[in-house]
């Protein structure tokens, strides 16, 4: 894996540093303007996963709108880590906001989410069945020249681990099945939004938003996205300022979507998030690879590769960002 030898150097962290108090107030004012004035909603629903991003969004919403106007929604399913619910509850308790628990497993079973996923895995691992666990992973970017192609990692009931490269049919089948999870969660969030006349807060950080790391109509759907402009490093900085429980701040980011624990690096970024953050910042601010390399503790060749991948992901995920396209403008709307 491409990783700075001694972690991300402090010069790089310095580049991304923001004034947490000022930024918090700026975002809070924007949230009030969006929710009350523009959307005419009475509060906000936040799907709280126990991760850093949704925790920060819940804290920001509570600060902006008042704790009585924020709902935390927990939507665990069979493959969720029990930790996620426990940490989600810690957020709601710390803030003193209302929370609701919706186990979405029965809905997912009704949609044959797990069966469709397992059928797709069986296209490449025929013996996959009850008692097995799985996740899909990208290769580490050790070899910059290689294409990033997905593999499935399966764990047999006996604990043996196998990794098999996916076919397009299997990959798309697994993805299409597991995307039910994010879409079901969003459906639940809108249920509560309708019930209380609230707006739905989206929780992507800048890295996820920019690189299309979301499900269209799932976690990509929201009425507002208050931290989509913040680099992940900055989200961590705000979390400290806002008083997000330390346990959440120290927890490595996971997707919490597959039955085997899966990091975001494995699934999408192929690079430690902090290093990815610096590279995205460098790309956005026109840093030549050689200059950024020195700051980020990477080689110029590695930065060049990462820049190219950032661009490629933007192109590949443009479809995810686009709203419904019309044949003709409806100018009255």
């Amino acid at each position: 894996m491409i990783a700075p030898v001694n972690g991300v150097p402090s010069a790089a962290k310095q580049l991304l540093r923001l004034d947490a108090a000022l930024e918090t107030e700026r975002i809070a004012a924007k949230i009030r303007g969006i929710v009350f004035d523009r959307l005419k909603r009475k509060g906000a629903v936040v799907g709280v996963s126990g991760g850093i991003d949704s925790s920060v969004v819940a804290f920001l919403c509570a600060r902006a709108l008042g704790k009585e106007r924020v709902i935390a929604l927990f939507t665990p399913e069979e493959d969720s880590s029990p930790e996620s619910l426990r940490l989600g509850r810690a957020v709601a308790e710390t803030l003193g906001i209302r929370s609701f628990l919706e186990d979405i497993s029965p809905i997912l079973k009704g949609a044959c989410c797990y069966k469709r996923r397992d059928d797709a895995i069986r296209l490449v691992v025929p013996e996959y069945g009850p008692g097995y666990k799985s996740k899909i992973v990208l290769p580490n970017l050790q070899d910059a020249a290689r294409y990033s192609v997905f593999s499935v990692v399966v764990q047999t009931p006996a604990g043996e681990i196998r990794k098999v490269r996916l076919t397009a049919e299997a990959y798309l089948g697994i993805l299409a099945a597991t995307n039910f999870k994010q879409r079901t969660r969003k459906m639940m969030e809108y249920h509560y939004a309708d019930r209380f006349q609230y707006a739905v807060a989206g929780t992507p950080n800048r890295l996820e938003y920019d690189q299309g790391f979301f499900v269209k109509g799932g976690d990509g759907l929201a009425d507002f996205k208050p931290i989509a402009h913040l680099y992940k490093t900055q989200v961590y900085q705000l979390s400290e300022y806002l008083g997000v429980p330390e346990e959440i701040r120290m927890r490595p980011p996971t997707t919490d979507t597959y039955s085997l624990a899966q990091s975001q690096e494995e699934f999408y970024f192929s690079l430690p998030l902090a290093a990815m953050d610096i590279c995205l910042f460098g790309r956005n601010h026109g840093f030549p690879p050689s200059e950024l390399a020195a700051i980020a503790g990477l080689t110029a060749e590695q930065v060049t590769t990462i820049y190219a991948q950032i661009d490629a992901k933007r192109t590949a995920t443009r479809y995810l960002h686009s709203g419904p396209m019309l044949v003709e403008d409806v100018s009255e709307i």
Partner: protein
Amino acid sequence: MQSRVHELRSFVVKNFLFGEDQRLDNADSFLDNGIIDSTGILELVMYLQHTYEIEIYDEELIPDNLDSVNRLAAFVEHKLAMPAVSKVS
């Protein structure tokens, strides 16, 4: 070799350009021209494995082998010329 180029070009045009030739040069990079993404690579690999009964290893999934019609043709020729051990039995 020429027929191989023709076969592979037909597959690429049909699958990734929706049948529209778009003046694709056989030397054009699929990556640079946004023709094939990472899911597309998986489709391409499946096609090559099935059509030519070859096995493609992870370490062979590099642009040098797969990133243009000409490179694909050369790669397939090279694989087919290898001893049967690297082909799917």
